[in-house]
């Protein structure tokens, strides 16, 4: 019996080594392992074997069956692997199928990055209308009626009392009217200026306004917050300066400059040879503004800032014509 088993083993080894396809392999499977296969039938014979031999033969049969099926599985994997490498003869360098890849407008990506930084510093995000009243856009922001400060911003008017907001600062008033301090928020949005359209200026752009009012808000904290923002956005090695300026709704007022990233401060066309680029305006909220929203300026102090998104994106990506933002040429849109 054992000899018979050895012979079967040998024959099987021989046959399986010759098998070269799944089809021939399947024939071997049928011959040995199917219901009527040689190995299966041997198990049937086990019944006829005397009891005392049963145990030993059973063991041998199990061994044979394991041997056969292991070898079979190995061979099968081998042949399958071969056949896969046969199909791999298709030209894998053919291009993939065209799919549409969406893109967020670079200005909104820029805005989102800015929002993320300020949100991480505990700022909320609020909005206000683009079509504003003279009251919110000018009066409550301490622009007196017949004052030259109004010339700082060329305005599109709807009529005497309504206009397209020239800055996002009116949202400061709207937010403070609704809330009591502490108020810490940024207010992004579209603004309009009646300026000639050319490579450097457009009649509309987006701003991010910022406001923080509480009991002990200082200019030093304004500087700290804006320096942190600028470093997070432009990089830690950034150099900056705060220079006095004028906005009717802040006092003291400042503009923040950073080193020109084109010339690294040595002076070039972009920074008008100054080595500096202005990125935002800011200051401590003017007590007159607090009067309009019934905040006590002895109890509360605050800071405000505003920056233009277009300008930031122009500088960061080296774009030399602002109009390209509004052309919506998909060859431009898809770059970002």
């Amino acid at each position, binding site marked *: 019996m054992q000899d018979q088993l050895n012979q079967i083993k040998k024959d099987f080894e021989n046959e399986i080594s010759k098998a070269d396809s799944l089809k021939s392999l399947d024939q071997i499977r049928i011959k040995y392992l199917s219901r009527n296969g040689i190995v299966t039938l041997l198990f049937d014979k086990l019944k006829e074997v005397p009891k005392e031999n049963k145990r030993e033969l059973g063991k041998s049969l199990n061994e044979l069956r394991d041997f056969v099926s292991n070898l079979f599985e190995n061979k099968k994997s081998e042949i399958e692997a071969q056949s896969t490498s046969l199909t791999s003869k298709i030209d894998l360098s053919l291009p993939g199928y065209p799919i549409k890849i969406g893109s967020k407008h670079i200005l909104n990506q820029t805005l989102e990055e800015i929002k993320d930084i300020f949100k991480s510093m505990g*700022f909320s995000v609020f909005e206000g209308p683009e079509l504003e009243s003279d009251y919110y856009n000018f009066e409550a922001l301490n622009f007196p009626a017949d004052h030259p400060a109004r010339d700082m911003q060329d305005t599109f008017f709807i009529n005497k009392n309504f206009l397209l907001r020239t800055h996002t600062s009116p949202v400061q008033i709207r937010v403070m009217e609704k809330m009591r301090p502490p108020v810490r928020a940024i207010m992004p949005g*579209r603004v309009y200026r009646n300026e000639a359209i050319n490579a450097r200026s457009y009649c509309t752009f987006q701003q991010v306004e910022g406001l923080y009012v509480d009991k002990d808000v200082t200019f030093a904290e304004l500087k700290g917050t804006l320096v942190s923002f600028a470093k997070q956005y432009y990089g830690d090695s950034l150099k900056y300066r*705060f*220079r006095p300026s*004028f906005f009717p709704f802040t006092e003291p007022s400042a503009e923040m400059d950073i080193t020109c990233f084109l010339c690294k401060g040595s002076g070039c066309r972009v920074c008008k040879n100054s080595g500096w680029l202005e990125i935002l305006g800011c200051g401590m909220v003017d007590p007159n503004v607090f009067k309009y929203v019934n905040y006590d300026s002895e109890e509360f102090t605050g800071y405000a800032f505003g920056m233009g998104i277009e300008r930031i994106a122009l500088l960061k990506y080296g774009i030399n014509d602002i109009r390209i933002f509004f052309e919506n040429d998909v060859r431009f*849109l898809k770059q970002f």
Partner: protein
Amino acid sequence: MKISLNWIKEYINLDGISVEEIVDILTMSGLEVEDVVNQNEIYKNFIVAEVKSVVKHPNADKLSVCEVFDGKEILQVICGASNVAANQKVVFAPVGSIIPNGNFEIKKAKIRGVESFGMICAEDELLLSDDHSGIMVLNDDLIPGTLITEALGLNDVILEIAVTPNRPDALSHIGVARDLSAIFNRELTLPEINLTESEIPAENIASVEISDTINCPRYCARIIQDVEIKESPLWLKNKIKSIGLRPINNIVDITNFILHEIGQPLHAFDLDFLNDKKIIVRSLESNIEFTTLDSKKRELPSGTLMICDSKKEVAIAGIMGGENSEITESTKNILIESAYFNPGSIRKTSKQIQLQTDSSYRFERGTDPNIVKYAAERAAQLISQYAGGKVLKGTIDIYPQKINPKELSLRFNRLNKILGFEIDNLKVAEILKNLGFELIEQNNEFIKVLVPTYRPDIEREIDLIEEVARINGYDNIPVVPKISVTLERKEDHQKFEDSVRNIFVGLGFNEMINNPLISEKEASLSGNPIKLANPQSIEMSCLRTTLLAGALNSVKRNLNFGNKDLMLFEIGNVFNAKNTAEINDFEDLVENQNLIFVLTGKEQLKSWNSVEKNFDFFSMKSFVNAFLSKISLEKFTNDSYYSNENENFIYSYQKLFENKIIGTGGKVKKQVLDLFDIQSDVFLFEFNLSEIKKINLPPLKFVEPLKYPKIIRDFAFIFDKEINYNQIEQFIFSQSVILLKQVDLFDVFESESIGSNKKSMAFRLEFYDEKRTLTEDEVEKEFNLLIEKITSHFNAKLRS
């Protein structure tokens, strides 16, 4: 504003301070220097040369070939100016010099076949004026080879300073010098007045009367007789030129000089043209026409503050004089006006008549009422010096109510509270003193000062804080290393819009941003447009009522660029008037945030193993549904279909939520596309995001994925053509409410073989139960019942 550093140095000693330092410190203390022209630098190559000979260019009518002596050798130079002549002394730009106007380098050149070794310069090329009528002809006694920086005194540094509207005090050389004096703690010296007056009092000759003292609180007049109108002396002409002005005559130049020296605008009248030699300051009672000294006729509204004589108007107060009394070459006797006008009144008139002058610019920002007399005396002194004549005794000074300096206190702890750090009390006092504030009281808690009247912007404690902060330097304010954040809820009102943006980017759309200002024609495509009162152009005269026009303009531009297959979207605000009446209140208008997406060209491009497919109405529907399911709204919405042409579409549909329209879109009709010159098919859909944002959906709940098998059955029917899919789908669900969960249409076809007014539709039905395995039998029963119901309800025929 142009400021000459040499000029400034007449009032303050700046020895030992470099130009760079001055530029930097001015910028860092609030007077932003936008440009620096260092004459020593830009004129370093230019020299005086002598023209030896001039002959006509052999090949060009308008050119001359000149021989020029530069002090060392004779060079051949081509010149295009008609005034070039032998023996002239000229400004010569040798090869290698950079012409300041345009920043180009002079190179050895061959002009029409003749070589040229340099250039003879005109004033505009050197940025000395805008004169390009001919080359500059210099004084004869200059020696060829001398640098022009030396020969012409062009060794100045000219600063272009951007003065903010709150700083009228800085609109002059003395004003800027005053800031420098405070910064560097150096003394400011004002010019002394040494006036030789005649015995005759001015009052004997002329008189002044102010009838509107609100708008003209002070008026000073000086009378000078027997002046000689002539060219100004060289120093004065140079000063006037250095700040970019053109010298006119000695009197005009002196008034201009004083405006830029002290900041006080002056006006000189020809006294002999003033009836009764009388000045009356009054407001117009009715509209008049008035000719200003630039020979322009102007309509002046009633209420305009005027300077008049006893019979007529002679000047628009603070803005511009009249032609009827201006200084001419034959003027003998003059009246110098030095006055203080109400800033608001000047600004109002300047705006109304749209005329801004150097004078009005200063008056509307606020001049110093208490410098008025000094300025008049300074003018009188310079006029007697450079125009001869007798200065009559005394200044006629009408100043009914003296404007006194305000008292203001600054609490030191308030300064610290605002800035976040401490500045030494003594330092605070020093800064204010150097800026011209008079200290009247000081202790450990506060300092009390008198605010000089040239600082109308300083009205409150906070304004003093800014003065101290800017002179002390913003750079000296520390940068806090940490901030504290309250733990209350943070809000983000743009979160929804940001997520919508992400959804559309994920669906493969490119985001556009269009100009919200559009033409009236475009705005009229839908809604009730709001017009601008002062548009830039007809193309931008209205606010958008819909995002459609912007989207179609972008489609058009892309088609022009050759980008034919487009998936674009935009989120933006649209504006509609509620009725056609005037907008007097926010209630009269609606400002909504909308979302539009637009499809044109191919949805799927042809590739080596796929076929191309154009976008169609159903592509659009898929994106509508994809978006609405991403915001969990889709299953709560209904559709309304419009197969007939309407406002903007050939066919279209609307999405509704609780019977409210939340979006509309379809295939854009030809008349609309023609407006944008688009030939391709365009599908677009516009949502009202503001409306969608308001919807309060029940919170999302987890639904366990199905554990039991689905049973799938297909059937196909032949229907009458006019029966639409929506009806069939609704009917199927109304009949099988429990076991049937999903219906998919997988084939539609029409053919003669099934009848011309028929169509075949094939459906795949999914049956399942969330709690158990369905039996084939119960599904079969349900399925057969459905077949029966559909057959009878629609008079349809089951296809086998």
